[in-house]
């Protein structure tokens, strides 16, 4: 199998996304938010289907109905917490209120790995390319262990362990993503990530913010370049060619678009971001994608997906 570059492009138009989101927002407002899962499914499936790898689109097969069930589950849990909190406030016992608040934060931290696990399972099972499903095969128990260790060490080291924690979670989760019978691998090291951010942080301060764009470039590069895909002995590599000036252009112009359009221009900003990603991630290697086999099972529970959405977790950690 010869080495070659793979075609990766985004073909979506800002105007099309704009129309989709206009209708989504109108329906979401009219239904007092209940339409949200359907709106989300529609936006995701547009973004997926306009992203083409080797001339075939990705597809998002999650449905509003599935996500609505997840949405309700997550919503009820949050509602229960608010009910408890309001009850505690009305009893005017400060201790009880604090206890419930504290309890909620602990609950939230404890819940994070469960939410991440379940949202990854759903999102991956609902993503496919040429009909071949993605999948997340990580063990919940392992992720919980990584979290417990990470939180403990981060507290003990007064936060210095943070970059190692982040990389450990990322490594575990990304390395357990599969597409058919191929799998992702993420090889990164907490120490390198720590110095990268250390350097970025201080240089950004010393240069009055100018270095920020180089810092972003380094973070992105560290994320992309350490990711690859393996299928038996063959591999496929990702490589970032984005430079600081590209980040400057992306971030500053997107900001101007969103600010001056009072948010209405955000579909064009999203389109620019998608173009930026597909243009700047070079994919090369030896994998013959024709040999990709269906191997991942389907999964329909969207509770984690919606929970992470309600609590505003980023999808890529």
């Amino acid at each position, binding site marked *: 199998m010869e080495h070659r570059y793979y075609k990766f492009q985004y073909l*979506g138009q800002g105007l099309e996304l704009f129309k989709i989101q206009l209708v989504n927002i*109108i329906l979401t407002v009219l239904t007092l938010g209940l339409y949200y899962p*359907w709106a989300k499914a529609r936006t995701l499936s547009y973004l997926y289907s306009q992203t083409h790898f080797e001339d075939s689109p990705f597809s998002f097969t999650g449905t509003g109905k599935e996500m609505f069930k997840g949405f309700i589950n997550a919503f009820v849990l949050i509602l229960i917490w608010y009910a408890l909190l309001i009850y505690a406030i009305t009893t005017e016992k400060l201790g009880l209120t604090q206890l419930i608040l504290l309890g909620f934060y602990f609950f939230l931290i404890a819940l994070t790995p469960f939410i991440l696990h379940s949202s990854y399972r759903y999102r991956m099972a609902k993503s496919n390319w*040429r009909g*071949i*499903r993605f999948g997340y095969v990580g063990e919940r128990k392992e992720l919980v262990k990584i979290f417990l260790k990470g939180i403990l060490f981060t507290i003990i080291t007064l936060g210095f362990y943070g970059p190692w924690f982040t990389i450990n979670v990322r490594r575990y989760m990304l390395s357990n993503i599969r597409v058919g019978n191929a799998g992702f691998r993420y090889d990164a090291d907490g120490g390198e990530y720590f110095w990268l951010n250390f350097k970025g942080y201080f240089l950004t301060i010393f240069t009055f913010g100018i270095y920020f764009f180089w810092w972003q470039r380094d973070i992105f590069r560290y994320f992309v370049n350490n990711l690859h895909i393996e299928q038996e002995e063959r591999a496929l590599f990702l490589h970032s060619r984005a430079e600081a000036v590209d980040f400057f252009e992306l971030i500053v112009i997107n900001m101007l678009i969103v600010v001056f359009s009072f948010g209405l221009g955000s579909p064009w900003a999203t389109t620019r971001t998608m173009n930026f990603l597909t243009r700047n991630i070079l994919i090369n290697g030896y994998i013959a994608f024709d040999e990709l086999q269906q191997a991942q099972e389907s999964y329909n529970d969207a509770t984690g997906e919606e929970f992470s959405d309600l609590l505003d977790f980023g999808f890529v950690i």
Partner: protein
Amino acid sequence: MDQTIVQYFNGQSARPVPARILLFNNAIQLYDIGGNNFLADFPFNGIRLLSNSGDAVHFSLLPDGSQTLQIPRHHLMLPELMKYAAGDRDRWFKGLSKIKLPLLLGLFLLVVIGGYYLLVSGLSGIGLQLISPRKEAELGKLVYEAMIKDQTIHQDATKALADFSTALDLSETYDLQFTVVDDTMVNAFAIPGGHIVVYKGILRKMQRPEELVALLGHEASHVNERHSLRNMLQELTGSFMLSMVFGDLGSIGGAVASQANMLRSLSYSRSLEESADEEGMKRMVKNNVDPEGMVMLMDRLKEASEGIELPGFLSTHPLTEDRKKHAQEFARKYSIARDLSPVLISNWEILKRSVEKASNPKPDKAQWY
């Protein structure tokens, strides 16, 4: 490239299977290109357009998306297939998508702005119901104590003002408490829960008791109508909702939105002032005091504001000609010669004397303009 050949992805592997298609029996029928053997068929109602960008058109053949079809852009059967492929199955979305863009944009603005106002007023209304006047008074007491800490209270005038107001009916729900601050600033304000603070400066400017009744009526209305609390709740729910909507856009969109929210609440406080004027004048009529006093009060404040900057009562809500005109209209309707009760007049005189007197033995920390 042969425009009659399509690529079929069968869900087993990502390798395309070249095929020919026929459309009949409300389904796509697939045949292999070698021996024309039947491969599979898929009913139209499960077929969905996946992507229409790029060199080929992609269809999903099953609801779970596990099998797809790639058709060259110039395939003869493509137009027909596009017609059969179920678009979006969501009828609401389909209907709205057909609307022309400018109209859609208008509808969007209408729904969003309307929804925003309805929700903000609805949610803050619920909050208003949940907070009892008793709770509000407790809260107000804290605010009052914090605000009055650095001020000198004019004891005589405070007592005189309390006596003056006992002869008036200013509130049904709240136990109003009055304080005169020994300061020449022309200022007065109301704190939620019932504290009304009046500065010596504004009392000195006044020439008739009706003006004082107008001022007290205005401030009491702020308390009775729970304006501060309402404002606070509306701002809270407004910024909460904006953060929900703009959460995804990051902080920039949020910042823009919160500025817009501030603008809104500014205009809101303007309308609250007008409503306090109106309610204040109704109170005057109820207490058998000529509402013309409100017009006089406004003239007095206008005189005072010439050339100097006025804090509080005036600066946050400029005295506009509109407000005065409004007061005049109201006064014209209800103005009849009304004699003030002797109690009011005698209390007014005591109050006036006490504020005109040279200040307390303590050096006055008055600010001179």
